[in-house]
């Protein structure tokens, strides 16, 4: 066990050397690294949000709201479909819980109604490979004329996937416009999106930008009523009501169909109104949008139209002259920042569904810096404690174990750097704990050597058997720790995952350093010093 072929010696030394080299980039600036020769390692450890400060925001698609919105859309579609020529009479059309219900009056038209309504079930593209199509709605038609659409479970799963994908793109566009930080946006489980923004102490602006659906619509205004009036009378069919942004008492009654939506916008920019000097948002329409808008404004000169953002009327200007150029202006008590936000939102497009924050974790930069300092201090103190303890208990062999321990520290940080892994504060705790575990293998070996020496073996044989006999136990001890590390990884988000990762890396690196590196040192020492007794 104490004999190493030359290639093994080189192999072990090479691994240790690569470990050392992989640590180096962490102490260099980005610009120095850029001029670094390409064969040398250059990746650095990524600091977790808890160490560098930043915001972790977990969003969830608001399923209920989305379903309700889709059911309302469906209701309008059902009405249009049945009123088409030849007209099919119905009663009681409306949303009831998670379903849309109606009753066909004339049962002889039931078959026709069924075939027409069947088209509204909305087949979803379930991906190239899946056979059969998934429908968004399930349709049941009773013999008594009762028709019921319900939101299908398979459809919802499918839709959530699409919503998350679209939302990630929209959020990405919105945040890119912010320009300051580089947040990561990714899917996280079913219908969830995780946004991580390093270095952001107060994520309010980020939340404002993501939290808004930013569904922009232009509607012709039919009437303007007070909130009290709105409570007393239900809206006429085909009319929708939206409240005013600033004055809660003003309710606009508008035509249900939108003249234009955010999709017709080509661009939006913040500007200042030339007369009032207030911040406004200038927009430009796409070719098709400009044409539509031109026609509508030509027909409706003198009438007001409402600019509706997420079901709230921002402003309701009167059309003074036909707008043919395809550009316009939105004003509405903006501050510079809110105008800027709106411009960003309009440029990036609307979210397909409302997103709510279900978990938020923000760490200020100062706490992060404190944590880094504390982590480094704890690591150094732990190294010194353990190193001294090992020398006190095992003398020279303890010192060998310390060399292996230091090699292990470098190797761990080297592996973390090379993998570009994220280091969190619990991760640092993992490194410190690993130091305790790292010498465990040495302890097992040394205790075994003592026993073998006491049992009367020669010095060399005792050293050799110590390594040999302890091996199985070391493997057992490490594998059990690995099981716990895997469970921790499964359990954790962010910081705790960092702990699991360092623990797992530590388990593997200590196996290498404690077993191979120590053995190599001991073997060299035996050849050089030719010890007469086991110094334990």
């Amino acid at each position, binding site marked *: 066990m104490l004999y190493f072929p030359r290639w093994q010696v080189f192999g072990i030394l090479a691994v240790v050397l690569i470990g050392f080299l992989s640590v180096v980039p962490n102490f260099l600036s980005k610009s120095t690294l850029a001029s670094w020769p390409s064969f040398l390692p250059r990746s650095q450890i990524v600091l977790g949000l*808890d160490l560098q400060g930043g915001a972790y925001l977990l969003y*969830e698609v608001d399923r209920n709201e989305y379903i309700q919105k889709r059911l309302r859309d469906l209701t309008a579609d059902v009405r249009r479909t049945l009123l088409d020529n030849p007209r099919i009479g119905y009663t009681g059309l409306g949303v009831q819980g998670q379903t849309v219900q109606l009753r066909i009056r004339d049962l002889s038209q039931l078959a026709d109604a069924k075939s027409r309504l069947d088209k509204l079930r909305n087949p979803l593209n379930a991906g190239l490979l899946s056979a059969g199509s998934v429908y968004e709605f399930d349709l049941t038609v009773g013999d008594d004329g009762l028709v019921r659409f319900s939101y299908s479970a398979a459809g919802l799963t499918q839709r959530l996937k699409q919503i998350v994908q679209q939302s990630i793109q929209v959020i990405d566009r919105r945040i890119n416009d912010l320009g300051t930080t580089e947040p990561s946006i990714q899917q996280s489980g079913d219908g969830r999106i995780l946004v991580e923004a390093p270095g952001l102490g*107060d994520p*309010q602006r980020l*939340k404002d930008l993501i939290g808004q659906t930013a569904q922009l619509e232009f509607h012709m205004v039919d009437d303007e009523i007070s909130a009290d009036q709105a409570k007393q009378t239900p809206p006429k069919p085909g009319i929708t009501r939206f409240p005013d942004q600033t004055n809660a008492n003003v309710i606009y009654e508008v035509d249900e169909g939108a003249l234009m939506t955010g999709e017709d916008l080509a661009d939006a920019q913040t500007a200042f109104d030339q007369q009032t000097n207030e911040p406004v948002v200038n927009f430009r329409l796409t070719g098709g949008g400009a044409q539509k808008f031109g026609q509508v404004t030509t027909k409706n000169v003198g009438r007001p139209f409402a600019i509706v953002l997420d079901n709230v009327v921002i402003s309701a200007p009167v059309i003074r002259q036909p707008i043919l150029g395809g550009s316009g202006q939105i004003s509405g008590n903006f501050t510079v920042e809110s105008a800027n936000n709106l411009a960003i939102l309009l440029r990036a497009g609307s979210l397909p569904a409302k997103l*709510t*924050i*279900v*978990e*938020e*974790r*923000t*760490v*200020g930069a100062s*706490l992060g810096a404190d*944590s880094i300092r*504390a*982590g480094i*201090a*704890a*690591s150094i*103190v*732990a190294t010194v*404690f*353990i190193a001294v*303890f*090992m*020398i*006190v*208990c095992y*003398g020279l062999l303890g010192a060998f174990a310390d060399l292996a321990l230091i090699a292990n520290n470098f190797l761990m940080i080297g592996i973390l750097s090379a993998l570009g892994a994220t280091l969190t504060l*619990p991760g*640092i*705790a993992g490194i*410190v*704990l690993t130091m*305790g*575990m790292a*010498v*465990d293998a040495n*302890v*097992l070996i040394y205790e075994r050597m*003592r*026993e073998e020496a006491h049992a009367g073996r020669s010095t060399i044989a005792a050293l050799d058997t110590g390594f040999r006999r302890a091996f199985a*136990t070391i493997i*057992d*001890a490490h594998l*059990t*720790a690995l*099981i*716990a590390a*895997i*469970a*921790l990884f*499964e*359990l*954790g988000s962010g*910081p*705790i995952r960092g*702990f699991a990762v360092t623990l797992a890396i530590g388990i593997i690196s200590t196996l290498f350093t404690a077993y191979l590196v120590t053995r190599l040192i001991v073997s060299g020492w035996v050849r050089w010093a030719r010890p007469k007794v086991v110094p334990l």
Partner: protein
Amino acid sequence: MKFPIRIVPDGTNLPFMKWAKVRTPISLVLILLSFVLFFTVGVNEGIDFKGGTSVEVHSVNGPADMAKLRATVDGLGLGDVQIQNIGTENDVLIRVATQPGGEEAQQAVVSKVRAALGGGAYEFRSVDVVGPRVSGELARTGTLAVLFTIAGIMIYIWFRFEWQFGIAAVATLVHDAILTVGFFALTQIDFNLTSLAAILTIIGYSLNDTVVIFDRIREILRRYKQMPVVDVIDLATNQSLARTIMTSLTLELALLALFFFGGPVVRSFTAAMIWGIFVATASSIFIGGPILIYFNIRARPEKDNKLAKSDADKAGTTAGA
């Protein structure tokens, strides 16, 4: 004193098996106490599992005025609010319970607190909001992770040793986990995801300790076929004692360094670990090995019979051929 120092003197031979009369009641009382504490006082569930908002602020100009801070935050009408110093006099932790009204209501808390304490006197060190849905999930995945670990460990031990060892190992680590939960109930340290991480690590470590002793038991069983099982267990425990204690001490040294120098964020985690490693060490010595006496580990009829049978078969075929 001779150098190097021996923490466990050579030739230590403690009669661990004889101490059952003392050991078993102590263990049972501690377990009972943990259960009583858990079901009466309960653990101080943090926002990870209970949901809610936790805000850490740092007073920029000298020590924080706690009375004023309490009045300000109470004035926001957020229901159950806890305010306490953490670490230094300048640092204050504000905890607000889950608000009625779903996920968005929790977000309103952050805006309100930020608005009330804004203006430069306080620096926001950290803000954590866990909505009702996520806290439920975290509790569920946490429980699953612990069960998954225990199952994984059982399977591993079962492969590596015999089933008796598996049961003994699991009994030991369940014992350690219960006492650690009891520790959380006693100290009222925040019980959150990190605490669960601590428990999982302790389980892993407890097992590590136990397995090393088991390895030794098996080795001695094989070497000394005639030695009574009681003596085997005693001998194995004594032979592993130096290692068990040494490794625990190095781990505890590392943990002490973390406790005193690692900052307030990891302090509760470290405290639990310090206790857990202590319990795990004690239980691997006093419970893991000794519990094996209740199983017949010497006779392994199935395997031995099978081996003997196949040998006999072989012999038979050879003879026949």
